[in-house]
């Protein structure tokens, strides 16, 4: 299973990749900005996208999820440190597969990605 990681904190991105690879999943790519991530999914898409809300660059993760949906049906899992009602409502509005609160538990991250990937293939 191929997982796209969109996260501007490189230490957190590295950690997420390690957790995914430890669980036998492969990383489709790591992008620090929505723009970079959109270029990555231009030709082919991941099975699952793990997306932070606050990103480098003008677009945030929620806008990225909307833009990616135009091309791919990959489920989106938000991994975010934000918890304010406005952001939560915006997240809900793009119908993600799940929202995980930072700091994320590794076992929870893996089980959510697996569930999202299976749902996508079914």
């Amino acid at each position: 299973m191929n997982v796209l990681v969109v996260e501007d904190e490189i230490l957190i991105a590295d950690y997420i990749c390690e957790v995914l690879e430890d669980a036998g999943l492969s990383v489709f790519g790591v992008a620090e900005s929505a723009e970079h991530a959109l270029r990555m999914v231009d030709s082919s898409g991941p099975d699952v996208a793990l997306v932070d809300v606050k990103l480098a660059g003008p677009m945030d993760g929620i806008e990225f999820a909307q833009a990616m949906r135009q091309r791919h049906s990959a489920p989106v899992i938000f991994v975010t440190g934000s918890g304010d009602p406005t952001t939560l409502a915006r997240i809900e509005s793009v119908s993600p597969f799940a929202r995980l609160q930072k700091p994320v538990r590794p076992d929870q991250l893996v089980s959510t990605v697996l569930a999202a990937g299976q749902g996508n293939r079914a």
Partner: protein
Amino acid sequence: MRVLILDDDPDTRALVARVLKQEFGDLELVEIIDEAAFEAALQFRAPDLVVTDYDLRWTDGLSVFRTARAAFPDCPVIMFTGTGNEEVAVEAMKAGLDDYIVKSQKQLRRLGPSARAAVDRASQRRALNLAEARYRDLFRSVPVGLYRCEPDGTFAAANPALLEMLGFENERQLTGANFQQMIAPAEMGGRTLPLNDSAQQEEPWTAEVRILRRDGRELWAMNSVHVVSDQTGPVRAYEGALTDVTAQRTLLEEKSLLLEELYHRVHNNLQIIISLLSSAARQIEDPVAREHFADVSQRVQSLALVQERLYRAGNLKRIAFHGYLEDLARGIIGTDQRVTLALDLAELELSIDQAAPLGLIANELILNALKHAFAAGSRGVIRVSLRVESDGRAILEIENNGVGPGGSSAEAGLRLVRRLATQLGAEVVSSAGQDGGTRATVRFAPWSTQVS
């Protein structure tokens, strides 16, 4: 009381003086026989009453009336004359003369009471003018926007503070402007100005409203409105007061943004700490040392959970500890299929100062049970219970039905439990569980009950 008497005939002046003295008692009488004396008298001090003949050698009674009123608009003037006629009388009364009395035996009786009535009227007029002036001053200088508008919301009047608040440069710009149309409908406190309501149901109301000013800028204001109407009739007008609360709202919004930013930073930084710990652990070969790193990560998780609960609770002081315990226990057990979690949690709110260390204690005890209580491959139950005793003390119990704690990381965890228990003034007792395992009992006094 000062009275000017204008008559060329000394006998008439004396007659008038006598009548007025009978009516008013003590009087300051000024008898005037020429223009110079009249001017001097008017310049000296305001008269309380002027009684004048119509036909005077140096002028006529109407000119006297106009000159007196020009100098003192409230001053009562009575014409007492034998030479006037009906035309003069009508013209004088139209101009506002207080009374016109013909010099005759029959009419003379009216002079006293008429003078009294004129003086009383003038005094009432002065009192009313004073009250109106006070009201006008207040209306113009009060730093609250005051308005009156028609039932459809068209402005009928507004004070300078309101003009300034709504961005009008002068009163002329107010003509035709509609208050209702300046108010964003969603923020009328769930209502718009009711156009045709009758007054009997209309209590005054106050609502925070968002107003689009004339220049397009936004204004938040407290709007206190009451209905002006007859007892049962339709609404005739709305009157209200507007207080600018934009600055307060901006402050609140900034505070909320700051809090969101802080929350985000805390969680992001905790995630970075966990990432750093994980990265460091990967460099270590020794499995026991690696386990210590994993334990620290789990402790950071338990602290992050307190932060999250605190932010979600909204008051930043207390959290629902029972809900926190459930999240914590489910998180630690995670996807481990060997263990069944049994929760029995009474509702308990705790301050952040107590919840964070207690959360760490619970974290260690649950983690210990998970890691050490069960032999490899065997299944078991971890029971987490929270209850409040009749003396107000609370009891947190973590019980397993496995073989018992052990291992060096368990020792490190138990040291942490003992230190935090000291901080909390809590008592930790280890005993045999009901089903052969181990039970840890933490007894503590929630700080809210200690205070009371």
